[in-house]
């Protein structure tokens, strides 16, 4: 069951691709004075956010009522924080600022990939989501994911190496000037970009945190988190030390914010490099600590433990 739960979330996310588009239109350039008013009230985004919140709340209430499967308060808190991070990234003025400042856009992406995604993954929201649905729906969703073809492809894309590559390609690929600038010109490209950032990040964190070998494989997760931290730092460093502006589309837009386009790009690179790196370190350490405690837990089931216990017992019998 556990291994199936994130799929619906991914499906939901990808089916509502247009949701993530910038609605403001590129012609509109945000000025300093308008910042606090520049919220993005995109109906589809608002709808999705509200639906997810309502479903979640409903599911939690039902679970609590039945007390069959408990849900821990920290998970609820984690979901709430992740949900708020989504609101911050997609609804708050940060979103519109992103069409003016590369650095803000980078900040938005980092919030999606490094704050919202891991928090949502940790809260395991699919359990309450499923509980919120009528029983029959739940059944058929379960059936669907038990199909061999679905199972196999799910297993294929949630190998740690696979998600590492998928997420890495998404992060690097979208920073190619051609693709990146397309997102500021085309709503669709932009929506695809945000969906793929959030989607691959969810996949990445889900595999590393809830992957199929559970906590046993946290050691390998730490290596993947570490190497991802390194390659994103290097991308950040390339942005920081670049001599030319990579995305000339920002050229006329940054002045109102007291930054030259190159400084804006440097700031974006630095955000990816340093605060981004910090999140990776924090998650990496958490995984590492969990890995150590898992080793203690598993120790109890080894042959040696059995041997020692029986020796203790036979001695006390004598």
């Amino acid at each position, binding site marked *: 069951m556990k291994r199936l739960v994130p799929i619906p979330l991914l499906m939901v996310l990808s089916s509502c691709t247009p949701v993530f588009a910038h609605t403001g239109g590129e012609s509109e350039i945000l000025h300093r004075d308008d910042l606090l008013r520049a919220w993005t009230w995109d109906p589809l985004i608002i709808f999705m956010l509200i639906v997810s919140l309502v479903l979640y709340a409903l599911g939690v209430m039902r679970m609590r009522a039945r007390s069959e499967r408990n849900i821990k308060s920290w998970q609820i808190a984690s979901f709430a924080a992740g949900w708020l991070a989504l609101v911050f990234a997609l609804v708050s003025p940060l979103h519109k600022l992103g069409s003016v400042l590369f650095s803000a856009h980078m900040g938005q992406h980092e919030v999606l990939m490094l704050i919202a995604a891991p928090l949502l993954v940790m809260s395991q929201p699919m359990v309450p989501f499923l509980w919120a649905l009528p029983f029959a729906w739940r059944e058929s969703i379960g059936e669907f994911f038990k199909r061999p073809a679905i199972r196999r492809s799910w297993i294929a894309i949630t190998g740690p190496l696979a998600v590492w590559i998928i997420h890495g390609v998404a992060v690097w690929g979208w920073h190619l000037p051609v693709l990146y600038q397309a997102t500021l010109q085309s709503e669709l490209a932009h929506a695809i970009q945000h969906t793929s950032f959030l989607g691959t990040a969810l996949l990445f964190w889900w595999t590393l945190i809830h992957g199929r070998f559970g906590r046993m494989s946290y050691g390998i997760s730490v290596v993947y988190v570490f190497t991802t931290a390194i390659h994103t730092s290097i991308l950040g460093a390339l942005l920081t*030390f670049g001599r*030319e502006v990579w995305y000339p589309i920002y050229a006329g837009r940054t002045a109102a914010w007291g930054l030259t386009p190159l400084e804006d790009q440097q700031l974006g690179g630095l955000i990816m490099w340093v605060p981004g790196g910090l999140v990776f370190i924090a998650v990496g350490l958490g995984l590492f600590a969990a890995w150590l405690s898992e080793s203690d837990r598993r120790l109890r089931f080894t042959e040696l433990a059995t041997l020692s216990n029986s020796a203790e017992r036979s001695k006390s019998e004598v």
Partner: protein
Amino acid sequence: MGTGSNTSHPRDRIALDVSVLPDVVFGHRSLIWLGTVGMMAIEGTMFAILIATYFFLRTRTTDWPPGVSNPALTFGTLNLIVFLLSAFPNQWTKKAAEKGDVAKSRIGLLIMSAVALINMALRVFEFPSLNCGWDSNAYGSAIWMLLGLHTVHLVTDAFDTFVLTALSFRDPVEGRRFMDISENGEYWYFVLLTWIPIYFVIYIVPRIL
């Protein structure tokens, strides 16, 4: 203080008997697998740093590739196709070795030796199709080094495959040989997988960046 084994009489000792354990294992259980993964991590890091170097040099100039024409696609792409297709015989050989199937392993190794020869032959033509010298400019140096470093890996694994092929025709083929064949297959995957981003960087990036 001291271990139990020092203080207690032999007869009282609790013993964990490990003689029943196997001594031919494959995949992540074996030492050689972890050792190979360590080597891959080292070499993967080298490729990654070299690719980062390439992009760093890219940020130093506006004109890319600087003053030379794009690399010709034919041989690199052919090599990519051969590499991708080689996954099938490679997997087949690896599975045969893990089942201890001598005959199949021999056939598989022969096929893989042939594949490696084709890859190396194509590689010979790749260098001229880069359309610049290693000494023309920094861009040329970077792509020559990328291609060269990958070639070193290709040649090493090819050599390893040849030696294993020769050994597989010598009786008896013991479990340890099959472990080696399986690991060789693992390493071939590494050579194959690293070629994908390197191909992309050498041949595609100058066209789109």
